[in-house]
């Protein structure tokens, strides 16, 4: 029952409704044309909602027809999801750290943590790559491109 398509359809319905809700709350200005700023969003919201319903129905029909256990296609997805989620957390850690430690330190930490997370070992190579990588990125973005990277509050 809970095949990937069915879940996808449910998410689509949820997204469509949410979008449609805000589309109906959209203010319209006196300068607006006949279609108006809410015209296209309303259309898209309804379209998304109906497509979600169709996808759900399709997947139910399909699973009834084939009688295949839907959960097979989810096998191992949970573990994979958590490993991907871990990487997202590291990226968020960087977002927090960069305002505190400043760019150079934060990017070194990011390089080290991500490499470790993805299976690198503590070694001289890791340190070299993390520090070297940070130096290269700093040289490109700060020195060459003059990007005002966050300097942090500690330094």
């Amino acid at each position, binding site marked *: 029952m809970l095949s990937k398509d069915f879940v996808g359809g449910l998410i689509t319905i949820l997204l469509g409704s949410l979008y449609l809700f805000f589309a109906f709350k959209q203010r319209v200005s006196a300068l607006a044309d*006949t279609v108006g700023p809410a015209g296209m969003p309303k259309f898209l919201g309804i*379209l998304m909602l109906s*497509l979600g319903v169709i996808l759900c129905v399709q997947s139910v029909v399909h699973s009834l027809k084939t009688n295949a256990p839907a959960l097979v296609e989810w096998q191992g997805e949970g573990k994979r999801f958590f490993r991907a989620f871990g*990487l997202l957390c590291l990226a968020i850690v960087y977002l927090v750290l960069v305002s505190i430690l400043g760019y150079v330190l934060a990017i070194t930490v990011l390089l080290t943590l991500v*490499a470790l997370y993805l299976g690198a070992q503590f070694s001289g190579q890791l340190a070299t790559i993390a520090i070297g990588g940070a130096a290269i990125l700093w040289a490109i973005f700060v020195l060459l*491109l003059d990007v005002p990277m966050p300097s942090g509050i500690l330094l």
Partner: protein
Amino acid sequence: MDTILTLLPDSLNFYLVLPAILGVAWGIIGGSLPGISPSITMALLLPFTYALEPSMAIVLLASTYVGAEYGGSIPAILIRTPGTNAAAASVLDGYEMNLQGKAGLALGISLYSGVIGSFVGLFFLVMLSQLLAELALAFTPPAYFALGILGLSVIVSLSDQSLVKGLIAAVLGLMIATIGTDPVSGISRFTFGVSGLLPGIQPILIMVGLFAMSELFKQASILEDLRVKTSPRIRFPEKKLRKRLILPQSIGALFGGFEGVMPGAGGTIASFMSYNEARRWSKSKDEFGKGSPEGIAAPETANNTVAGTSLIPLLSFGIPGSNSTAILLGGFLVHGLIPGPMLFARSGDVVTDLYAGLFFAAIALFFIGYAIMPVCIWLVNKPRPYLNAFILALIMSGIYSINNSLFDLSIMLVAGVIGYFMRVMKFPFLPTVLGLVLGFMIESNFRRSLLLSGDDLSIFMDDKISLMLLTFAVIFVFGSLAKRLIQVLRAGT
């Protein structure tokens, strides 16, 4: 012919070769960094051109544009990270080829097509300026709308996937495109009071998120390293393949030719439209999305053609059609040159110098592109943990530099999460990107057309270009639907 002959004496002029080479090299660097768009790459050089002699300054900037349009494809192919918006079309097949261990060939095709595109663009610029300028004038709002619809119509023919899922993905892209200031009334939509959202979400954030970030998530989720080692040598297509690439390259040149001259269309739309059409007209459609050389050749030819033809509205009307040409306009203005109809009469020598410079740039592109490739391939053959850590750091740095904004980084990460789930649920990316790129153009020009006609829909029939493009779109949609129906019926019986 006369115009070409006048280029010859200048070709001996070393002083234009140097800025062309430097511009291309700088452009490739900037273009290959995710988030650093061609226009930012050019803008970074702008202050330094003030000191240069006008011709050198203009050639430097224009060559940077050429290099940047090509540079975007390197990370697109090697690390699934589009360096520029326009290069996102090259991710689709380029990265697939890379996964098959054919990165050297993919880069070769991209470079080969990019150089061809640069020459075609220059040819259009020198020989067909007048004609293309008139074409740009003929494109009214209904025609832009129809062009966008034609672009979206390809979604129906993505036959190997569920049509419903393709449509959902497209609507998602269109939805993202509605965020920001309403193109007609000026009221803000879905911004929730965040001023960072007022100008809309920049497509590059979504593209890098969908393609690159989701790939990093996916790789983090799989423990074993499935990569095929790529030999660190760039390979150019052989004769048989070159022949096969002629059609997609012509399509790319065609779209690059006319979309370059249209303000508001530009490289990204040209790349995606030519990818669509190359697929539509290809003998081996099914290969697209699975590592088709044609899928790289078309967009890469298109975006480099644009680097030439987008100069046409600037030189003929004084109108910058894109961010990049707006920077070039700045370059003209600080030297007291005003691009436009009078430029040829008043400072014709600068214009011929520009032509000569672009010629050198196309040649320089070939050699520099060839020289740096082994280094790039060598880099991506590093152990996976280090490589992916570096890619993430690169993306986080590049996206930040667009607006010096941590908020942009969050948007990119959200797009990455969406992309990850789309992959898990097996939704295609191409429709989302098409919706994102074309959504604004479709909506604003649809409403603009209705304003022009006083809410009379017949304006889309009365405008000849619009009628023609819409007819094509309708034929394609019904054609693919009919094909699909026949398949379903056959399978049913």
